[in-house]
Every structure is written in C-alpha cells, then in structure tokens.
C-alpha cells in the first residue's frame, strides 16, 4: 500500500512538475466512437488530432478515448476528459449529442465541439462536412464510367446524411446520363466487411458494374478489384486496397478545422458556431483520380472546382422527388435544414426508402 501511495505521489509530482515547466500547455480531447485503426471515420478524425499535435504541439497536449459506445459510457468518457483538464473536447459521432450537451452544462469553461450534431450551446459548437458535395462528383464519374448504367450503392442506415449522399450521387449521375440507375442495399452496420463484401457481390451479379459505399470497410472495393470492376472509396483513400479498382475516394479531412478551433481556444477567440464545410473548406477531399480516361478526369476536376467556388451546388432546385412532388426554388440550393433532415429519394431511384 505504501508503495502505491509513494508511486501516486511521485506520479502527481511528475505531472504537476511537467505542467509547470511546459508553461500552460492546454489539453485538447477527442472522443471516438470506433477504433482509430478502422481506416475510416475514426481514423480520419484521429489524423486531424495528430495534425494538431504536429502544428501546435508546443502549446497543446492531446488526449483521446476510442471505442466509446454511444450510450451510458459516452457521458462519463466526455466528463473524464473534462476532468483531466481538457479545454476543448471534440466528440466525433452523432450519438454523443445529449451526452456532450450534459457535460457542457457542467463545465461552462470548457469548449465542446460535436460532430454531425444539431444541438448548440454557449460553449458547444457543431461541425459537419458536406459529404454530399463529393457524392455529386462521383455520381458524375459513375455515369461516365459505367457501361451498364447501373451502380450498386452499399449503405448502413437510413439517416439523413446517408440519404442526402445517395440523392446527390444520383443527381450527379443524372446530369451526365438521365437514365442512370442505382440499386441500394442496407447492411445495417457502419463496419461489417463480410456483409459489405456479400452486398457487393450481389450487386455485381444484379448488373451493377460500379460500386459506391457509405460504409467504412474496404471490402466492397476489394471485391470490385477481384471482379475487374470499379468503385469509390469512402472516408479515406483506399487505393492501396484496390489499386486497379478505385476511381477516387471521398476523404474526410478534419485537420484544418481542428487546428483552427484549437488555435481559437488558445488565443481566446472561440465562439460557438455551426460549421458545415464542404469541398471549399477542405473538409471534403476528393482523392486523386485513378483508373479513368482523361476526359473523365477533366470533367470531374471541373465539377469539383465549380462546387468549391460555389458556382455549382448539388441540391439546386427544382428537384423532383420520387413521389413526383417538386422541391426547391429554381436556381437556389435547398436550405441546410432540409438537407440535414432529408428522408426522401429523388426521382429515378426505384428502391423504397426504409421508413
């Protein structure tokens, strides 16, 4: 017992001594819903954290907890980071919303940033990326590259972010080929290589020759590679898993945002905000175009530029819904709330959206 106490004392001394020497190094914390090694969602967030360490390492110390289940454990994990002295905490999954809000109330001096959420407070901001912009681009590529005119789309759950992704993809594809078709398969999981692989095989067998996914594993692309078909990566660049099959990937890049927000805490300029960055902010990156002819590269690059400079917006009205009604004003983009809560398909998608 004495040994423990001695150790504890030594530990405490070391930590405080370290703190005194390092001169107000503030702590920034991250909560991940999955493992940082998933090479997908949590991996990319962690890359952002590593960039903060790289650029601001002399002033900031980063701490994180991974594999935090959305549920009872989330609040405790967030509070733990706050108690550890973190001055800004990023919670990187929608399911952490209430937990983040609760802890934010308890720690008014700590800044909280919730990814893909909708609740804000004086010390709680939300941030998100317009992934659907990327989907529009790959939709165009798909329509150009597909010989059968049918794409297979593997998705996890029917939440608005996924649905807006499907719609943006379709709109992009339809801008090149109005008769383009997409077949959607829901695998009910963000990360299940077995099911995703099977879904890919089924979709290929049903006539799709290009695969799109909103799930995090590399399995569908690997199947595409095996069968000599093509597809798109998700969340991170998956080219090394499918050197001949990946056309491009939508890569989440949070590093710019993270660095700027931590800096804001450092110089005291942090305020709550709702940030929804797209290709323009660098949050959504399109991986290098590979395995496609030059004219397609040209088209894709142009579209990306147009979206980046706000000349083109995927959800520009009028848009015809699957049920025939029309939404959106001509020439104007749909309001953000509508995109954030999207639960309908555009016309041209034959599948029924699970309600």
């Amino acid at each position, binding site marked *: 017992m004495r040994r*423990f106490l001695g150790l504890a004392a030594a530990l405490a001394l070391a930590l405080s001594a370290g703190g005194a020497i390092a001169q107000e190094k503030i702590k920034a914390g991250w909560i991940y819903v999955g493992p940082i090694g998933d090479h997908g969602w949590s991996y990319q967030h962690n890359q952002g954290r590593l960039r903060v360490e790289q650029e601001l390492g002399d002033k900031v110390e980063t701490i994180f907890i991974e594999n935090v289940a959305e*549920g009872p454990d989330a609040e405790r994990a967030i509070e733990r980071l706050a108690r550890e002295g973190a001055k800004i905490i990023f919670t990187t999954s*929608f399911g952490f919303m209430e937990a983040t809000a609760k802890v934010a109330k308890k720690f008014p001096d700590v800044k909280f940033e919730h990814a893909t959420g909708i609740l804000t407070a004086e010390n709680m901001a939300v941030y998100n990326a317009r992934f659907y912009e990327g989907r529009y681009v790959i939709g165009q590529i798909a329509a150009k590259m597909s010989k059968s005119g049918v794409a297979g789309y593997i998705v996890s759950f029917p939440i608005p972010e996924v649905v807006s992704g499907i719609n943006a993809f379709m709109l992009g594809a339809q801008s090149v080929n109005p008769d383009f078709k997409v077949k959607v398969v829901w695998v009910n999981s963000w990360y299940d290589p077995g099911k995703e692989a099977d879904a890919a095989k089924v979709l290929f067998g049903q006539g799709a020759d290009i695969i799109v996914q909103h799930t995090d594993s590399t399995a569908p692309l690997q199947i595409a590679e095996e069968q000599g078909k093509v597809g798109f990566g998700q969340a991170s660049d998956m080219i090394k898993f499918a050197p001949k099959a990946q056309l491009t990937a939508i890569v989440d890049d949070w590093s710019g945002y993270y660095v700027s927000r931590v800096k804001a805490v450092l110089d005291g300029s942090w305020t709550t905000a709702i940030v929804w960055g797209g290709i323009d902010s660098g949050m959504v990156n399109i991986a290098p175009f590979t395995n496609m002819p030059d004219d397609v590269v040209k088209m894709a690059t142009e579209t990306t530029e147009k979206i980046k400079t706000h000349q083109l917006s995927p959800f520009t009205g009028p848009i015809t819904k699957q049920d025939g009604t029309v939404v959106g004003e001509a020439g104007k983009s749909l309001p953000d709330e509508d995109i954030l809560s999207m639960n309908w398909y555009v016309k041209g998608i034959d599948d029924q959206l699970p309600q």
Partner: protein
Amino acid sequence: MRLVLERRAEHSRLMMVMSPVLAIALTLVAGGIIFAIRGLDPLEALYVYFIEPVTTIWSVEQLLVKAAPLVLIGIGLAVCYLANVWNIGAEGQLTAGAILGGIIPVLFPAWQSPLVLACMLLLGIIGGMIYGAIPALLKVRFGANEILTSLMLVYVAQLLLDWLVRGPWRDPKGFNFPKSVTFDGWQLLPTIGYTVHIGIIFAVIAVLAMAVVMGRMLKGFEIRVLGNAPRAGRFAGFSRDRMVFFCFLLSGGLAGLAGICEVMSTVGQLQPTISPGYGFTAIIIAFLGRLNPVGVLLAGLLLAISYLGGEAAQVTLGVSDKIAKVFQGILLFFVLACDTLILYRIRFQPPLAAHPVSAE
C-alpha cells in the same frame, strides 16, 4: 509426472474463501506481465486500473452507477445458474424491458406524474419477464437448449429496438435521426446528487433479497437441489419445469428493470445502443461472485472498477481499451481454475505402470 485430482471429503472451507482471492492475485500478476510486455510499469498500470477509480468522489459515483445494472442482472443470473438454468440472453431481456417501459414516454410524452415513474419501472420489469419467458417456454415445451435460444433472442431484441427507433418511435423533431423523444421530468429516475440514481437502491435490495431467499427460505433450498441433484428434487416434489420458468422470469425481470433504469437515467431516451453489453458482463459477475449474493455485489464493483480503470488507462497511459476485456477473461479463467481447489485436492503422482487391460 501426472496431475491427479483427489476428491475431498467435503468442500474445503479455506479454499471457498481463498479461491477468489487467489484468482484475483493471479490475474493481477498476469496483468502485470501483460503490461510489462507492452513496456509499461506494471505497478503504475495496475494502480491506474484498480486504485485510481476509487480515489475521487466523481469516480466513485460513476462506479456505483456502472455497477448497479451489473449487480442487478448478476443476481438474477446467479439464481439461474444455481438451478442449472443457463440464461445467456440477459442482454435481450434488458432491451425488451427498456422497450416496454419506454412505451410511456414515447406514446404519452406529456403525461407527467409520479405514476409515470412507477408505471415505467413496472413495465420494464414486465417486458424483461415476458422476453425471458420465451426461452423458458421453448425449453419446457420443446426441450430447446436455453443457452442458444436466449442468445439468439438477444440479437432479435436489439434489432427490434433498432427498427423502433429508426421508424415508428423516431422523434419527429429529431431531424430523422434514430432516437426517440428525450425523457423528461417523471420519466427520468430521481437522483441523489447529479448522477447516482435510485437504480442503485434496487441493486442493493436485490442482493439482500437473494441472500434472504437463498439462505432462509424453502425456495432457496429448492433452487439449489434442482440445480445440484435434479432427480432428488423430483422425488421431493419440486418441479423442474416450474423452476425453469421461475428462473427466467426472475432474471428476465431484473434484467428488464436494469434496462429501463438505464434508459431512464444515463441514456435518457431510446436509441439503438442502450447498453454496452451489461447482460453479458453480468454473466461474468455471477460466476466471479461464485453465485453468492454478496459475491455478486463485490464482483460487480470489481468489474465496474476495471471498466473505469480501462478508460482512465486510455487517457493517462495511452493503453488500449481491449486490455480491460482481456483482464475480465483472465480473471474468469483463474476463478474457474481456482474453484477446482474447493472440490479437489491436487496431487502430483508418478506415471502409472501399464495396466492389464490395454487401451488400444
């Protein structure tokens, strides 16, 4: 050199007390070795895992909140396992309880009165009981193995919850995200302080109740006899079928209570994930506690400590969270191994000479 087990004339009282202690000690040693291999100071790591969680008030509060559902379910499972009824589906019964109890805030969000609290808890228990009755029925009526049926039903319950919160029970103001309305007012458990909710009281009551029943009442005797010597139980007039139902309804009800308490407190609504595997961890707790009420209580606290310690270790030591799971598995193994010492004495003997009837 052979390892031979020699049956003791009666259970060794010394080992009954020493066995869990020995198991814990061995686990700590094994844990220390794992840490050392990974390049950490074993003592420091063990401190962070097991001692630090009890050093702050906040941490102790979190500990109690985490241990409460574990102990609640663990008590129910301990009764089951004593009767040789293998309920592995507590996680599913937990979910079913949460679903049934959650009906009230979802369908009647504006109804606020102490009655709501009582009804939700009651429905939670009933939900768990109904769900637990299914494997019991299948076992009694069809002889279907309850381990597998109760386990399969876990997946079914989770998928049912998933469907409900994504579809019919989705919060209309929730931007189409898979959550139900947030619970409010009487739909939430009253708390002492900020976090400690009355679920903890339920857990303590359960421990006391089991101690009384098992120690002093005929039911306890019945449970033990049917578990150890079913034929004797039959001769005594105890019905095995009734016991199966009793055990499943009891553990199902307790699991359902734990489930509704969770959604009425720390979670505060219905969503696809409401439990980080409490139903399965409780199985470990039941065994760690050697199927004894006080043991279950202590085991629950110990495991809750290891969970909290695992999280703390991630932050302060940078250690992966999977070590906590390995700890639990190793602990369980050692407990099971050391338990042998209660019934048997271990002797090392020289190899036998070839005996007259050759084996092959």
